[in-house]
């Protein structure tokens, strides 16, 4: 019994091993929320991935191998993410995972990444301090965002008192907690901090609290599109006109919000209006490839694009797709993309970024008001 089972197991292991190594393509796994809350931004992420892969293949692939994109739906949640990562790593046998995820999904998936020993480039801004041997992050963390927004409001708008509104989840709380500390450190005062459940849409009580606190400025950090829209509309209809910094709105949503977003200050590492040749080429190529189907590129889809190029650079530097070598190489390479040149740090596993502060115009477009070069990611991880 024991012997046969061993033989069987060995046979199956050999079989599955052979299928993995027989591939002469490089598979990039993109687990992303095609359904659920993230499905608002997921299409833009898939589009930028497709562009990157097309470009790389057109230029001869990576180390001569063709690159293949494998997209899987994670349902925007932890349970779905586990399924998606399991499927990508163990069923599809991808060489690398590059994607944005909710924090819950990322956390749920990390043990699988560890088990599967696959490099993972996380391309979503998040609340920070998530560390894993196999993971690199190329998007912003609160340390980078808060300073830009708070400094601008304090200096240009003379805001001394701030009111913070968030969705009650890890990202909302994480970002606002850091923001609060930053405000207090820089001499400002937080006069109120209120949260609504992620799926909440009635901001009445919070707006009442806001009015009675009468702050100089408002900063919000909500969960994705719907709460942003309902909060924006209700603020507007309640006649709240103080400077408003929004830490969680992408360009597409800002456009959707129409007049409710006009005048809002946003910050990020990517805006479509960034003026550099890489971004212009990127936007032109996206437009050419997707035409009317194009989803507005944003601070999630562009890091995704950058992430794929970072992987390419790392594999080429390492000379193979061997996970350990790739992880080592990822800390050594730098890539220049629409967001400028980005070099991820091998110790902190995050990247210093150039941050932009912009204001939403009446037509929904973003106008960059100020640029903050090479904002440090602060203390994140400490790998050697």
């Amino acid at each position: 019994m024991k012997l046969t089972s061993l033989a069987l197991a060995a046979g199956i292991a050999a079989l599955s091993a052979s299928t993995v190594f027989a591939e002469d393509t490089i598979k990039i796994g993109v687990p992303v929320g095609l359904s659920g809350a993230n499905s608002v931004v997921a299409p833009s992420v898939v589009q930028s991935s497709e562009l990157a892969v097309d470009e790389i293949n057109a230029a001869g692939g990576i180390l001569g191998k063709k690159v293949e994109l494998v997209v899987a739906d994670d349902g925007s949640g932890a349970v779905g993410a586990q399924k998606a990562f399991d499927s990508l790593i163990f069923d599809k046998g991808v060489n690398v995972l590059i994607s944005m995820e909710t924090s819950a999904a990322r956390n749920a998936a990390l043990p699988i990444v560890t088990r599967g020993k696959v490099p993972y480039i996380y391309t979503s801004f998040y609340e920070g301090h998530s560390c894993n041997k196999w993971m690199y992050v190329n998007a912003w963390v609160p340390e980078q965002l808060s300073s830009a927004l708070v400094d601008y409001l304090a200096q240009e708008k003379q805001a001394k008192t701030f009111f913070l509104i968030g969705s009650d989840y890890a990202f909302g709380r994480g970002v606002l907690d850091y923001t609060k500390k930053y405000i207090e450190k820089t001499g400002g005062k937080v006069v109120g901090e209120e949260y609504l459940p992620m799926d909440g849409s009635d901001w009445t009580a919070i707006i009442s609290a806001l009015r009675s606190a009468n702050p100089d400025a408002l900063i919000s950090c909500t969960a994705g599109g719907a709460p942003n829209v309902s909060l924006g509309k209700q603020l507007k209809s309640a006649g709240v006109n103080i400077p408003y910094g929004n830490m969680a709105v992408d360009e597409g949503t800002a456009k959707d919000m129409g007049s409710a977003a006009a005048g809002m200050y946003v910050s990020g590492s990517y805006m479509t209006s960034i003026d550099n040749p890489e971004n212009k080429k990127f936007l032109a190529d996206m437009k050419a490839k997707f035409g009317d189907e194009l989803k507005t590129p944003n601070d999630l889809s562009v890091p995704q694009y950058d992430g794929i190029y970072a992987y390419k650079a790392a594999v080429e530097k390492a000379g193979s797709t061997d996970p350990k070598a790739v992880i080592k190489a990822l800390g050594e390479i730098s890539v220049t993309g629409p967001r400028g040149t980005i070099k991820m740090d091998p110790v902190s596993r995050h990247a210093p970024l150039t941050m932009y502060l912009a204001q939403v115009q009446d037509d929904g477009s973003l106008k960059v008001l100020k640029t903050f070069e090479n904002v440090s990611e602060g203390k994140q991880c400490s790998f050697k």
Partner: protein
Amino acid sequence: MYNRTLKKALPIPALICLALIVLGPYVCSMYLVNLLIKAFFFTVAAIAVDILWGYTGYLTFGQSAFFGIGAYCAGLVFTHLGFTDGNIALALALALVLPAALSFFVGWLSFYRGASEFFPCVISLVVPIVVMQLVLSGGEFTGSSSGLTGFDTFEFDMDGWFWLSGGFMLAVAMAAHFFLQSDGGKVLVAIRDNEQRCAYLGLNPERIKILLMTVLGAVTGLAGFGYASFSGVVAPELTGFQFGTELIMWVALSGRATLWGPVLGTLLINVATGYLSSSIPFVWQLILGLSFILVIILLPKGLIPLIFRQLGKASPMAPELQAAQISAPYSGAHALDMQKVAKSYGSLSVLSDITLTGDQGELIGIIGPNGAGKTTLMRCMSDGTARTSGLVSLCGHDIGKAAPQKCVGFGLGRKFQNANIFQTLTVAQCLRMARFIVEKPSFLQESSVLKLPQYVLDVLKVTGLDGKLSAVASDLSHGEQQALELTMVLALEPKVVLLDEPTAGLTLPERRGIGKIFSDLAHKYSLCCLLVEHDLDFVKEVATRIVVLHHGTIVMQGTPEEVVNSELVQTIYAGARQE
């Protein structure tokens, strides 16, 4: 040999599961093994939903909350206290106790006398929402929306996890299988079919449901603990309402009220979802939604029973009947004593100033036109909350505000006007339910012997029901159903028997036989029988005393001759004025 008995103990789907669990790691890909391990834990939760909803009739959206709490017990303890032997024991204990305690509380909140049909369902909706919200607002402690991750957990390899989770699932399924097949387990279906009848058999449906919920809460919590330990992750959505409805969908699609349907169905759906949903998310959701609607409307029994036909059907067995020892008759004063009982709805008085006693050995006929208050009178005798004022005592116990099951405990048996039985149980199972409080049934197996008092055996014989012990109650004729209810009431060995039109729908020979039995009940077995009847001929034959009720009061009582020949009765009851 795979004979009938073995088939019953170990049905084909169980064999399929067993084969899968033993061979799984050798034949399945790593990915499939991974999917199945999680599916095994989900299946346990689905079994709990199936037992609660399919068998007991309690539609719950909230089982996910208990699963989630079990998972969080593991996550929280291992994250904040560390992974040590002591903490494993602590986490395990918490994963059993907390969900059980919350289930108990939810059960207590949901099940009480007079709750509307929707109420438990409403509560089950609120529970996961509240639990999830608490988790979300738990900040660093619960990890809020990110959940907890990266905690140390058991270091089994995949195969070990597979066998462990599969074994756990199969153990739960087999335990449920034996329980549901046992005589005692049929009480769940009895509750689903007819809670009122359960109460009037002396059972406490609310208490049984709360107990069931508590046990299943603990089992579900354990499954959650296993899931968290395996995946190394806990997330708020595990506690959520969305997951709760998914459990219902799995059970509904695969076949509620069949144990193995949801077992196989949940595994299949989870595997299919694992392969399909990541490539066609929207269409997959649409397919699930549409098939869910179609199944609910057209195939309420679900899809799996279409494949395994025997799943949905009970395997009817006719036990051997034996005479049981009958408990001693009541020997105190007045078996039934009603003093100045009145009942009114607001200003409308239905009964007033009813003073009536009944002794052992008496057979009292209660007659009166429709609307005279006969049925209300019966209710006042059998349910402490029914009357507005006055005293009622049964066998020397003041019933106060006692619930029907309490009154039954005092020695009461009540037969309703319409056959009030368990529609989906067999005759033998119905009778065994009726014997529940006299002789606790086995919760592990189906007994081959059914002991009943002699007079019950007599009624079964007269009505021919003794030849139909394995027939399902709903397949019986109207008269047979009436007779079945009568035998169920008598199987309680009551001291005071209330009979509301027991002979309606019976044929003439059957009536004669029943009449003889009623006489025996009173005279030979010294019971106190109260008989509401329209058929004056019948009452006259059997009763020792007749009480005439009119406009909510007792207008006359006396021997059958006195009553039948009185002018008053001719006028108000027979409805004819002599001209």
